[in-house]
């Protein structure tokens, strides 16, 4: 009995500098397959649809439960996580491409360094170290914690940057994800103590003003993070900060 096959058309690239090309693979179908398990089938038997032996397709993945953000790729034209994309719910043949916003390392492996650099740039952390014991921080209302938890779901997966028309090689726009992280850390009672540092980082070139309100980010975010609400709220905060910077203020710290 012939086994049921699924067809994968994968955009591949051998090295960061080389040109990309498409290659078709047919893999055995199993029930409840996701894209990662389909890619693993290719890894086990790296023979393309023409019967040629090929170097196996490389990709990146870690958690396999849509919380690490490593396996983002463009599947049937939609940027999403390969682990939570089920083959049964997709139209055949399945096209898989790397996210075009990021530099390709090899095949589906992309370099998301720019996002991690952005998080460093906007100080997306809460400093708690001092030269002496700083004691417990201020308390956070439970309701606010629940609200902030939604923002903390960001896994730096890069899907929002991929969908944003203003994140591209012609622009240095930081993108939605790090912006929303500024809102998260500015909302924290201890993080708030460094609020102006983060806002000033967003007012540098390539910062928040690069947003053109296409609002694709909030539509595609796999974690449902209210990215455009964060951006609008930060527009308000940065405008206020810019007035404080220009005119001076009795509470500009």
């Amino acid at each position: 009995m012939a086994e049921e096959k699924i067809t994968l058309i994968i955009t591949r690239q051998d090295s960061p500098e080389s040109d990309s090309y498409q290659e078709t693979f047919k893999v055995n179908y199993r029930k409840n397959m996701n894209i990662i398990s389909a890619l693993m089938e290719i890894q086990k038997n790296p023979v393309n649809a023409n019967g040629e032996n090929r170097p196996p397709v490389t990709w990146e993945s870690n958690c396999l439960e849509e919380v690490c953000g490593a396996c983002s790729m463009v599947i049937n034209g939609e940027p999403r996580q390969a682990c939570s994309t089920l083959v049964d719910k997709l139209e055949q043949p399945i096209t898989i491409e790397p996210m075009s916003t990021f530099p390709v390392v090899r095949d589906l492996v992309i370099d998301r360094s720019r996002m991690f650099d952005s998080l460093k740039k906007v100080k997306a952390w809460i400093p708690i170290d001092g030269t002496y014991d700083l004691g417990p921080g201020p308390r956070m209302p439970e309701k606010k914690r629940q609200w902030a938890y939604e923002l903390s779901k960001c896994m730096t997966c890069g899907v929002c940057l991929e969908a944003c028309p203003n994140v591209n090689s012609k622009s240095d726009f930081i993108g939605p994800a790090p912006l929303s992280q500024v809102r998260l850390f500015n909302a924290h009672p201890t993080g708030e103590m460094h609020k102006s540092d983060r806002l000033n980082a967003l007012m540098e070139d390539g910062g928040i003003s690069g947003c053109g309100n296409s609002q694709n980010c909030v539509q595609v975010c796999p974690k449902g993070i209210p990215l455009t609400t964060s951006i609008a709220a930060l527009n308000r905060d940065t405008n206020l900060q810019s007035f404080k910077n220009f005119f001076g203020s009795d509470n500009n710290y």
Partner: protein
Amino acid sequence: MENREFFYRRLHSLLGVVPIGLFLVQHLIINHFAVYGPESFNKAAHFMESLPFRYALELFVIFLPILFHAVLGVYIVFVAKNNVKRYGFFRNWMFFLQRITGIITLVFIVWHVWQTRVQIGLGNEELDFSLMESILASPAMFWFYVIGVVSTTFHFANGLWSFLVSWGITVTPRSQKIATYATLIVFLAVTYIGIRALFAFV
């Protein structure tokens, strides 16, 4: 100039509404006098023409703000990589149309200013009803003006929506949705005023 982008972009957003948006609405309302006949239009146009400090008003309320808005605007159009094919969401279409209408409006304004204000300044034409009547007598020119006016009013109304976001006035999805409807009404109202005036000249 490092780190001036934020200031320039906010200034760009502000100038689009004050004074350019206000000027646009005022301009179209003055044009609307044409609906009540040539004499009514000429009276209104001559009143505007004889405003005190006219050259300063033209320079600081109209020419310089539009020049800045246009130069930075063209740059903004250039750095976007439109993707409405892949992401056909409503706001993404508005983003795309804002850039398209920006370019159409720029072409229209340059042509329109050359044909009217510059020619009047050179003494080749008189500012009155018959000037517009002769321009709009050509069907091609009439439709160019219709497209130009609709493009301008769309750019203004949708720009008003982004202005509210860029200045942190509408933050929540609900407030932004209400702003969408409100700016739609602004678009329809201002377009009606502008287009009705155009028809009055033919």
